[in-house]
């Protein structure tokens, strides 16, 4: 059985990617299973999705902790210690990252167990679809191609199955072209077998009763949302052009998260630790003085 784990953000089509790969495997005659995992749906929040592919019936369900193939759609997640997309990956795990960086650059930055495969999917999605952040087709194609056991025609059929209902014919056509482009830009890998470990017992413990304030879902620390850094939910980052900003403060009023503050000079300041990148400020700015930039690039400015 091949187990594939997808990482990305709400709105990037990560769940759809897992479904396209699932359908493609199914079309190619495999047993397949796919499912997403996310809390209360929020655009930009980290989500995980999974696809299992096997020539025999799949006797497993739920999250994949030790994947054969890891597909990271959004490289900013590598910075997120809660998501920890590399968690459970070992030397036998093939890791793919959607990035503009070189393998050497990204390996220096993050502790990959082995050299990751890299392709800039966002750029191709921007070219083919005009939307760099919609990664469903691209990420599924990367996965299918790396696995090497799925025919291109089965994959194209899967893209039609999963997207045909909701997309206009011309948009679907562009997705099919994107599929062919990415399919031919990557090469199949040999997926190493995972070593089979003998079962050992789980280290079960007996919990002792604790006082109620620890034993019930009570939160005593008020206002702790400030500690929940939501800045890494951004796919796009707003950037205020202070040369032209006239301090009208419409962005301050419209920010639904209250992440724009006013500094001593009366200028709006974005709190990037909490801004979720909804880009409402950019849409509302009357003079269009707030730019939208790709997060993975903006973060280093």
């Amino acid at each position, binding site marked *: 059985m091949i187990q594939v784990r997808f990482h990305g953000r709400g709105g990037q089509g990560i769940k759809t990617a897992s479904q396209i790969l699932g359908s493609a495997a199914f079309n190619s005659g495999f047993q397949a299973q796919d499912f997403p995992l996310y809390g*209360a749906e929020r655009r930009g929040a980290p989500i995980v999705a999974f696809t299992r592919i096997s020539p025999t019936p799949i006797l497993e369900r739920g999250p994949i902790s030790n994947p054969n193939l890891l597909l990271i759609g959004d490289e900013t997640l590598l910075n997120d210690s809660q998501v920890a997309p590399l968690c459970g990956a070992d030397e036998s795990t093939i890791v793919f990252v959607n990035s503009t960086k070189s393998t050497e650059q990204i390996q220096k930055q993050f502790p990959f167990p082995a050299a990751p495969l890299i392709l800039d999917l966002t750029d191709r999605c921007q070219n083919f679809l005009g939307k760099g952040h919609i990664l469903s087709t691209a990420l599924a194609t990367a996965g299918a191609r790396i696995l090497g056991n799925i025919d291109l025609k089965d994959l194209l059929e899967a893209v039609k199955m999963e997207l045909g209902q909701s997309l206009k014919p011309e948009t679907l056509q562009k997705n099919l072209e994107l599929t062919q482009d990415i399919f031919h830009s990557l090469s199949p890998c040999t997926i190493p077998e995972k070593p089979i470990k003998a079962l050992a017992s789980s280290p079960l413990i007996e919990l002792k*009763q604790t006082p*109620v*304030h620890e*034993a*019930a*879902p*009570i939160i005593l620390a008020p206002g702790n949302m400030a500690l929940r850094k939501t800045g890494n939910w951004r796919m796009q980052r707003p950037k205020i052009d202070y040369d032209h900003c006239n301090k009208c403060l419409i962005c301050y009023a419209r920010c639904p998260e209250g992440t724009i503050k006013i500094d001593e000079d009366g200028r709006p300041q974005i709190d990037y630790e909490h801004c979720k990148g909804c880009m409402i400020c950019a849409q509302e700015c009357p003079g269009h003085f707030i730019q939208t930039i790709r997060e993975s690039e903006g973060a280093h400015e």
Partner: protein
Amino acid sequence: MNKHSKMMLTGNKAAAWGVRLAQVDYVPAFPITPQTEIVETLAQWFSDGTLTGKYTNMDSEHSMFMAAGAAAATGVRVFTASSSQGILHGMEALYTIAGWRVPLVMVNVSRALATPITLEPDHNDVMSTRDCGMVQLHAETCQEVLDFILIGHRIAEHPQVALPVLVNMDGFYLSFTREPVVLPEPSEVARFLPPYKSEQPVFKASQPMARASAVFGGATYSYFKIQQDLAVRQAETVFHEVSEEFAQYFGRNYGPVENFMMDDAEFVFVMSNSFATKGKAAVLELRKQGIKAGLLKLRLIRPFPTQAIADSLLGHHKVAVIDQNLSPGMGGILFPEIVTSLYSRINRPEKFLSVIGGLGGKDILKEDFFSIVEHLRSDKSEGPLFLYNDDDLKQFKKVSHIALAEKGGSES
């Protein structure tokens, strides 16, 4: 009031007196037959100044239980009451407030559930709340109703428990039935049950806190549920402590179970609530006829007192569990719990019989107990045995005849 004065009280009035003596601070209420008299009485006492706290009419049982839980989270003493469809309507809130780990006492006046609609009792309503994470005390007499409310507040408010406590009584058979009830001296109640001072954090103005956070991934959820289980289990130890103290103050001694004529009993009936009185009478009749019968009455339903049950039942040969509830397709709800309490023990009874009776307030006759003994003596399979006889069928047919008359139905 004289020390230990006795009054003729209905179960409902006894409950109201329990609340009055406990000096409860807040009662959110929503009347439903057959418990309306409890909240009517309390409304009167709050309105004329006999009780000094706050009484609020809510718009449903769901709001009522939420209000009760929220008030308890501020650290005041809370009571509320419900019944039947009402407690089911509030079910979501019951799980919620039990999870908040807040102390309060509620009375459920048992009444069978629709459909068909009836007003008379059985225990499917209270059994449906079995898994909410509340402590449950089931009363046989009006006296137990009053006493369990006082004991219930002590258990609920114990720092190692901090949970809602439900006191159950049967509709009509207790709720509307008057019998002599000893009213404890208020000054003694005040010593047994002093004003509530929470030892856990409570809601206060300008001190924000949350009691109902969302958690994901299962590990945190499981932790809190296991802690809830530990707290409900701990309530048994606390019940013993509090009962002992209660006996010192008031002379009435309550164990988690009551053994009636059990010493040499060959045939044991396991029962709970008001029909246990009928069971005791039947035991005495059977004994007159030379049949060694006994009765085990359950008072504590959650936590389930498995050790006390095993202590009572081990060594006896034949046990019939009489459930006044029905899980269709399975049988009585308490039956498997009793069997589980004994399964792994040496010297366990050789025969268990599941009996279903008293549904929708249908009487359980002394003759029914004789039939149960016959079944226990026979080598028939385990059941469930439904206590339903020829007369019952005749009564049904009378009604059915009228209902189907237009269609030319049932002529027999």
